[in-house]
């Protein structure tokens, strides 16, 4: 008989850093477009797996000297290579016991509604590059667009259904969402990615996390975001299985722009003169002169494409904001990931370019 323990054992042996199991009724109340029960209605359980982001790939960003390894190893490497390999192995175990294993790796959001603002149609994710030049030739705005999707049957949700990964991780009892909207675990703080399997096997669920709060509400994430994307006062509240999750209201489009392009004080790949010139006002968004929107982001992309071409790979996290701020504060003040490292990530003041 397939048990939760067997699944966890296989997940850890295959390379996951943690594994938790939730029951599908914990998604009660989710908006239909994000309710995973529409993917596999017979599912009874969700298996969540945590994959650590090695702190070492944030090291170069903390020093301001190497940005490549984080998106390559800790975004693409985990989401596209490592996690699917583990999902595959755990899925085999589930199938071998006669159950369905509906595996779901992080696809970087390709849902029927935008993970930026909840609107139908165009979906973008900050980590992935927009092929600016090519896309400009097409009718659809982006390669991730799914606006032509439609339900296969009445009452169904149009594909692809993209559920809220971080809330699903909460549903598996793996941790909590911090004020930054990042998912936090006791072991790794904000340094992890997650992947899931939905199954019709009825498994013993883990309790939702109920230990001491993992987020200290220190607001380091708010302070260190170069785009001011995260509200200090306004919040979003969601209930998962009766557990209230609350995080600061995030301007996702703005976050997108600053994650990928940093702004004049955080992007060492674009010369100062380019920011000073701000030709055609293309960089107004990053200069704090316009509100964030998809249109403004495309202006930024087109203007900066030549300084760091999109074909070299995933977007580098040039903003350097919330994730490192969170890690350095947790290491200093506690909350989670206490005693994990002998040396702290941050030993001085975080760098800001003098421009």
């Amino acid at each position, binding site marked *: 008989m397939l048990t939760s323990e067997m699944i966890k054992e296989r997940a850890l042996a295959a*390379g996951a*850093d943690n594994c938790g199991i939730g029951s599908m009724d914990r998604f009660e109340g989710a908006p239909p477009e994000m309710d995973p029960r529409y993917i596999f209605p017979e599912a009874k359980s969700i298996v969540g797996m945590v*994959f*650590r982001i*090695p*702190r*070492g*790939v944030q*090291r*170069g960003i903390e*020093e*301001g*000297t*190497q*940005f*490549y*390894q984080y998106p*390559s*190893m800790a975004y*693409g*490497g*985990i989401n596209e*290579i*490592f996690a699917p*390999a583990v999902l595959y192995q755990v899925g085999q175990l589930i199938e071998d016991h006669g159950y369905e294993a509906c595996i779901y790796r992080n696809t970087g959001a390709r849902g029927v509604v935008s993970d930026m603002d909840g609107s139908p149609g165009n979906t973008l994710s900050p980590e992935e590059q927009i092929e600016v030049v090519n896309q400009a030739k097409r009718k659809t705005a982006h390669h991730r667009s799914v606006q032509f999707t439609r339900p296969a049957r009445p009452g169904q949700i149009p594909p692809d259904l993209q559920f809220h990964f971080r809330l699903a991780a909460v549903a598996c009892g793996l941790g909590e969402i911090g004020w930054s909207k990042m998912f936090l675990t006791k072991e790794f703080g904000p340094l992890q990615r997650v992947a899931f399997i939905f199954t019709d096997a009825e498994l013993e669920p883990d309790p939702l996390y109920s230990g001491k709060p993992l987020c200290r509400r220190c607001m380091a994430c708010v302070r260190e975001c170069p785009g001011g994307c995260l509200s200090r006062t306004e919040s979003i509240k969601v209930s998962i299985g009766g557990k209230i999750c609350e995080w600061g209201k995030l301007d996702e489009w703005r976050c997108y722009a600053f994650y990928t392009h940093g702004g004049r004080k955080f992007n*060492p*790949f*674009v*010369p*100062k003169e380019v920011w000073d010139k701000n030709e055609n006002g293309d960089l107004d968004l990053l200069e704090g002169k316009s509100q964030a929107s998809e249109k403004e982001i495309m202006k930024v992309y087109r203007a900066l494409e030549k*300084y*760091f*071409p999109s*074909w*070299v*790979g995933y977007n580098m996290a040039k903003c350097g904001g919330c994730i490192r701020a969170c890690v350095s504060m947790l290491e200093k003040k506690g909350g989670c990931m206490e*005693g*994990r*490292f*002998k*040396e702290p990530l941050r030993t001085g003041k975080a*760098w800001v*370019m*003098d421009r």
Partner: protein
Amino acid sequence: MINAEIIKQKALEYGAAAVGIGDIAGFAGVSPQRDPKMILPHAKCIIGFLFRVPRALFRTMNEHTQFMQYTQVGVKYIDEDLSEIFLLKMGALIENEGYDACLQRNISNLRIKGDHSTNPELVDTYELVNAEPVAPGKPAPDVIIDFNLAAAVCGLGRAGDSGHLIAPKLGPFLRMAFIVTDAPLVCDPPFGAPLCDHCGACAAACPGKAIGEEGTDTWQCAVYYRGAHKSNPFMTEQFLAGDPEREQVIEGEKHFDRESARAIYKKIDFLPSRSTGYIPCICGRACDAACYRHLKEKGVL
């Protein structure tokens, strides 16, 4: 408690063909843009891993029977799949003991500011010409470690005249990855004398005459890696038809620089490549194959 022995044992278990640990002091004097201490200032050592490229992939290319497998398995799979999973697992091992593991996969498509060379294996490479240091005293990002030097520091091998690393047992049929760490591990001595004996076999084998006294001209290499040469089994009469320099090009007599190489790239299109970003190797890495044969005959490998 983690130690060098455990690291090496696990590395072999996870798929490396060879592993060595080098003292970070071995990088003394290198350009800051190549210095691993600029990534992890309190680094103590660098762990080097070699992954074998199956010899048969070279054999089939040089017998003109199969070309795609080398690029897909020998280059892309090792760099992007095998070594990434490997590094993540090794990194977890080190992190579990409280040390940083700065994973260094091959940054194949970027070049540090000032490095005008290219990587023939890719559709193109980008030199970080616009990069500026984030603060005084720091190098312009990205710091990209010199893998050949790092391998020598780790005691794994040394580059030959072709510019490719040559290691015991593997010869030049290998790829590399590294971890920079503050874990206090017992280090191996740097690699001694290179296995390359300057026999000239690599230079003689290159259909583009890209290897000279100063090493490999990467732009020249890139043009012939893609198949601009006469011995390319996919060569057609239509290639550069009407171009007065055609004979010079396919004989490997024309010299290409960055601009002229990029200009001819789109005309050298013999096998599909664009979807992966990797260029099929049509020269068969004749340089490495010749090097391997020579070292094997000499009894070095």
